[in-house]
């Protein structure tokens, strides 16, 4: 337990030193109520950075949602995701027959914890955002009490792009936007488009 925590704060400290990460709270404040932080996804370090920019008491109650097919394959990854990050590992393969991901995520929210979710479903190698998967919508429907907070992660994809071994020490900024909730009668597509737009609104202007 002690070692897990120590490792967690060491990793956060390293991420902060490498990226000089700055959190901008634009329309929301750090708060202990159950939340779903949903963010753009470019790098494996994304959730570490969100974690690192939350105040420590909140960090311990905020769990990343991670792909089981990646994180449960080696014993080191298993140790990191289960013990250090306390991740919620979901099976994202179509036609799975394990536990229902929405229920797994819901359990954490029901216990008063928060989640970090990447609704693009995978790391995006291009610009902008991929279309959102429907998990965010199911979660919002099942847990109207949870606040949905968009988080735009700027630059981490450039610090350590997929396939590179050495990071470029660029400065990263995390913009936390205003909370979002589903409107009655709104279709799934409309909700996901609105969530995606809310996230894109936090991105700096394109060149």
């Amino acid at each position, binding site marked *: 337990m002690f070692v897990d925590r120590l490792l967690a704060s060491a990793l956060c400290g390293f991420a902060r030193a490498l990226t*000089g990460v700055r959190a901008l709270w634009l329309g929301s404040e750090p708060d202990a109520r159950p939340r779903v932080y949903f963010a753009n996804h470019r790098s494996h370090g994304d959730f570490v950075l969100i974690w690192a920019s939350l105040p420590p008491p909140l960090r311990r109650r905020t769990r990343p949602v991670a792909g089981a097919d990646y994180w449960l394959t080696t014993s080191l990854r298993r140790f990191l995701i289960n013990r250090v990050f306390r991740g919620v590992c979901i099976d994202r393969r179509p036609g799975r027959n394990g536990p229902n991901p929405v229920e797994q995520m819901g359990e954490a929210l029901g216990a008063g914890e928060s989640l970090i979710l990447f609704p693009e479903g995978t790391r995006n190698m291009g610009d902008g955002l991929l279309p959102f998967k429907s998990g965010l919508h199911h979660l919002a429907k099942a847990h109207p009490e949870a606040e949905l907070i968009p988080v735009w992660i700027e630059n981490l994809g450039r610090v350590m792009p997929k396939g590179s071994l*050495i990071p*470029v*020490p660029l*400065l*990263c900024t995390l913009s936390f936007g205003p909370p979002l909730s589903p409107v009655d009668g709104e279709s799934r597509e409309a909700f996901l488009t609105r969530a995606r737009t809310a996230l894109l609104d936090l991105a*700096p*202007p*394109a*060149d």
Partner: protein
Amino acid sequence: MNASHDLITVFGGIFGLLAVFSLIGAGLKYRVARGQPHGVIDNLNARIKAWWAMIALIGAAIWIGPWGVIALFAFISFQCLREFISLTHTRLGDHRALLWSFFVFLPAQYWLIATHWYGLFSILIPVYAFLLLPISSSLGADTTRFLERAAKVQWGLMICVYCLSHVPALLTLDIAGYAGRNMLLIVFLILTVQSSDVFQYVWGKLIGKRKVSPAISPSKTVEGLVGGVLTSTAVGAALWWITPFTPLEAGLIALVINVMGFFGGFVLSAIKRDRGVKDWGAMIEGHGGMLDRVDSISFSAPIFFHIVRYWWVA
């Protein structure tokens, strides 16, 4: 005429002035703001506090010697390049070029100063980085905005590394009758240009009315510009005794580097405005990022270096 004696006098004077400014800042907070939060006064006090730290850091580097000064400016370059590239868009294909910039060209430039290799120092970035980095980017096989990306990386290296490295490079100049005193040239440059920034701010806040260019900088005024440049030109002339210059020469050189310094801040403001930000970063409280603090030095240091090298180096 002992260099360390002069350094102690100058730094003693600066710390004395800072103490006076700190007292004025505390007085303003107490009398005008009555201890309540006050945008301008709190920012002023944050700036003064940061000045204490910055002057102490420069003093410590000078006390350590040439290696201390070279290491300090290598770090400043590193932080500036970080801020610059963070705000400009590059793409995946530039990753290697960026690694080269941060981990090869930046350290090499400062290593060349330490080894007094002037020939390569003066062309490493304008020639070798200029040609090699686009080659590296082209191997990334991504043509989107290629020229723009190559230009941005090169520009960042020029402003943040090449230009700034001319400050410690002053230590390599052999000036007749000035041996062992080159540290004082650095003090002259930094003090004159930074005091110009400070006096532009002060004159602008006191009597500033007409904006130089509202599209580029909402805070730069004609009154601030003229008052600031003239006041710090007088500061430069008054510092002639730590330089190899006569008072008139010191004043003229101060005028040139102050004008360059002003336009350094102006040009970098134009870039910031285009990117939709106010500051390059948040490293120095009250000032913004590192590049916000040294933009004026970046534009004035190479010119100062060449003036001294052309007319004073035998």
